[in-house]
């Protein structure tokens, strides 16, 4: 499948850092001067498909990059944003985290007008959501497979070998 991000990661295009799990790029259409992107190297369309371990690594990195933007770009604030799905403003076919350096008067509005919900509406939302959060599970780290040596091997000796072992026994005092 042709994914522009996968292509860019493979070709090392505009990549600031890359390892086996994540890749960091400067956004080619930035919101401010200092807008970074973190992608999982493995192709995932939305963040739900990204393995937990990579998600953790991506956000730990996002925090470090946010600090870097404060230091290197003299940002006065940063936003860490995941636009998950086109309804949330996702523009690429590859899951990502945006880290945006913010300054006073940068004309970016990431604030929402708070809804006035009644107590009933809040309780309904809670019920709907907890029905799923109760079942929430996390991917447990799989232990490395341990190689178990096949012990039956010892039993299946060729006659010569068997003789050899018996001879050894004879020799023992």
């Amino acid at each position: 499948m042709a994914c522009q991000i996968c292509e860019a990661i493979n070709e090392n295009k505009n990549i600031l850092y890359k390892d086996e799990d994540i890749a960091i790029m400067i956004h080619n259409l930035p919101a401010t001067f200092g807008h970074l992107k973190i992608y999982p190297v493995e192709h995932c369309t939305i963040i739900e498909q990204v393995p937990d371990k990579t998600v953790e690594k991506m956000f730990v990195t996002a925090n470090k990059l946010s600090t870097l933007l404060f230091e290197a770009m003299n940002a006065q604030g940063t936003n860490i944003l995941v636009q998950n799905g086109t309804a949330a403003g996702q523009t690429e076919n590859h899951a990502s985290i945006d880290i945006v350096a913010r300054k006073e008067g940068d004309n970016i509005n990431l604030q929402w007008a708070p809804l006035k919900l009644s107590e009933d509406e809040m309780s309904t939302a809670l019920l709907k959501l907890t029905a799923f959060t109760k079942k929430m599970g996390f991917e447990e780290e799989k232990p490395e497979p341990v190689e178990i040596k096949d012990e039956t091997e010892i039993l299946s000796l060729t006659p010569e070998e068997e003789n050899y072992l018996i001879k050894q026994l004879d020799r023992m005092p």
Partner: protein
Amino acid sequence: MPQPTEEELQSMSPEQLAELQKKNCIFCKIIKEEVPSKKVYDDDDCYCILDINPAAPGHVLILPREHYQIMPQIPEKLIGSMFKVSKAISQAQLKAFQAQGTSIFVANGVIAGQKAPHFMIHVFPRTEKDNIGMVLPQYKLTPEQLNDLKNVLQPGINRIFGVKTQPKPEPEQPPLPLPQSKEEPAMGVENIPEELFEPQPRKKETRKELPEEDFTEELTEQDIDLDKMRELYR
């Protein structure tokens, strides 16, 4: 709790102020369950509630149990754990509200939209026509600007990941000529005066010393009551 006056506030040290802020933090009170809230999920690291000023029904705040004002203060492990939860909450929202997407949002600093002195992650469900906004403008960078940005950020990123930049390969220097003359020989074993060698103790002696030391140490540590022991053996 009596609130400190303006003068008292000004005379406080930053540590005292931080302590006061922690005491007054509404989110800490929610986590301690002194203030009622609509809890969605909690574990050892975090506490998730419904936002009372939601962008959409089902808007969740993920709070660390410990009071942290800003994100750089938070240990890596906790960040990983909290965002792992944010992914799971996002998944739950997609199912619970038949949402078409979710936004996971963090604001660092007042200018970025941080309103509370307790770090939090916002996760809320999105639909195509929800009018929530949160759209990032898109500007074009000139190749020069891109290059400038790269030059500013690359050293920091290399430092974060411990990437060692490869220095330009230096021209190979001819091997140093070996000293040919034997008039000034380098310090070798044969040139060290014999007085410097101290006679080494025999192995037997060292072995004798060691267990004795260990033994006395053990005795003092365990504090054995000799009288009691004597009675036991009678």
